[in-house]
């Protein structure tokens, strides 16, 4: 950050915010093919449990490389999974964006995420902190790492038929 001018960082904040909002809108719209295209090949999508950061050596809610992401989306789309056919509808709000670090072609961004799901005439609310590592690409950004820490990740949850 130190090498960036204030104007540069404001422009960058606007750019990453736009990108993350667009990603959030894709997930609410369940436009999963477009979402898969946002990722770098070696990107990781993780929902950890608790405070740990040694994701490979701990139990997570999900720890998805490219194959697991494709399989997860395939499961959502094929219609054989009773919990995702139909899935819950979701509306999410992403806010409190901060650029945590920027160097080379990587930008680390954090934000707050609130999500409301609706299924069976019942609404449930989830809140979490989201941490993105974005990679600068020719046509904008790619998702390189996305970690969403639910506030109650180590508590009693419900099953999710959508992505955070």
């Amino acid at each position, binding site marked *: 950050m130190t090498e960036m001018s204030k104007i540069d960082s404001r422009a960058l904040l606007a750019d990453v915010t736009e990108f993350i909002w667009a990603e959030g809108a894709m997930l609410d719209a369940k436009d999963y093919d477009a979402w898969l295209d946002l990722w770098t090949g070696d990107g990781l999508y993780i929902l950890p449990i608790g405070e740990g950061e040694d994701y490979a*050596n701990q139990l*997570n809610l999900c720890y998805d490389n490219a194959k697991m992401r494709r399989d997860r989306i*395939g499961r959502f789309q094929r219609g054989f*999974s009773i919990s995702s056919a139909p899935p819950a509808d979701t509306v999410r709000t992403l806010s409190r964006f901060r650029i945590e670090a920027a160097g080379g072609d990587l930008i680390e961004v954090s934000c707050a995420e609130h999500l409301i799901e609706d299924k*069976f005439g019942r609404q449930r609310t989830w809140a979490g902190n989201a941490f993105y590592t974005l990679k600068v690409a020719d046509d904008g950004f790619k998702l390189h790492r996305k970690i969403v820490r639910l506030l109650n990740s180590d508590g009693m949850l419900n099953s999710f038929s959508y992505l955070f």
Partner: protein
Amino acid sequence: MSLDTPKFSDLDALYDEENALVATLMYEDPALFDEEMEKIFKTTWVWVAHESEFPDKGSFKLSQVGQEPVIVVRDRKGKIHCMVNRCRHRAATVCEVKKGKTSSFQCPYHGWGYALDGSLRAVPYPEQYGDDFDKSQHGLLKLRTEAYNGMVFASFNEEIEPLEDFLGPQVRRYIDLFMKQGGGFPVKVLGEHQFAVPMNWKVQLENTTDAYHFPVVHKSFMQTLDGATEDMFDFLDKGVGYVEDLGNGHSVMTMIPELMDLDENLDAPIPDRFAELAQELRDEGYPEEQVKKIVRAVSGAGFNLNLFPNVSFSLAFFRVLTPIAVDRTDIRHIAIGMDGGPAAANQARLRLHEHFQGPMGFGSPDDAEVWERVQRGTRGGDSLPILVNRGLVDEEPGEAGPRGHISAETGMRAAYKMWKRMMSQ
């Protein structure tokens, strides 16, 4: 309520053993639920912890026996205690840390202090209780606590038979077989997935002994497997394996015969999906014999062992149920691995667990959906029975009790038979 609604005294109407029919009321009635908490969960052995969850002197874990909050702890001599998490003074919980290490428990309200074995040690300003106040009568309420092969159970029933007798020789044999997935290392809890489901606890009790649902509910999971692994889970089409009543409400469902004893078939070729892991272990210097043993253990055991009333040993993890209300049950899927074993092997186990289990697994959410659908469905047609009679047609005597087809509901019948026995006390 109609006049012909079964009364609790009429247990035959709630569970018709001869025809294997369960009354809808069994999932729906709050008063019946309260009675189950008394006559079952306060009366029998209830699973509370695995020893690896509180490994050291002073280590503890919060748990539940039925609806009552308990602390499971190891004292300074390593002895395991289980006690109700409630100060004997004015009932505040003395601990709200889920897991940790301590030298004592102190009530946050007025400072009463308890030792690791639950005995009352310190009372601030004790004079107002008079000279005849007996500290020894004011320890935390203790439960009987016994363990078998790392699995810790507790009971409010002081008169209950020893845990080993309650389990019986067949169950103990299966527990020993299950724990072989340590691959030569002690079994260790690696973490847990937790999710609440709007269902009666018995819907869950039925499910772990239900192979019939697997190809239907878990089709989307099967579609993400390689051919060899998909074939391994195709136990219903192959018709191999069986379900057997092991007595006292317990049952076993054997699904993958070649994985019943992980110390056997060690010469079998390493499956393709574990080729990379095997090479990693070789590169770390593990001799070939141990590589095979560890890799074989990573895939888990080939059976589900279901213990009445609240824990299952399911292929490669523990499933624990906690009844919260007549229509709400908390579920824990506990991941296990090798204590001191190679990190690569434990990573493989963690990724396999995440693949199927928990709120974002490829299996559990579909299970949770159908369990909830049972609870939603029983709001209609309350005169209709729930059928658990599948496989009665060709059930035969097994080693311990009736043995049925792999998709038979023999395990559910075992559980309901025990349910009836306990509820009639």
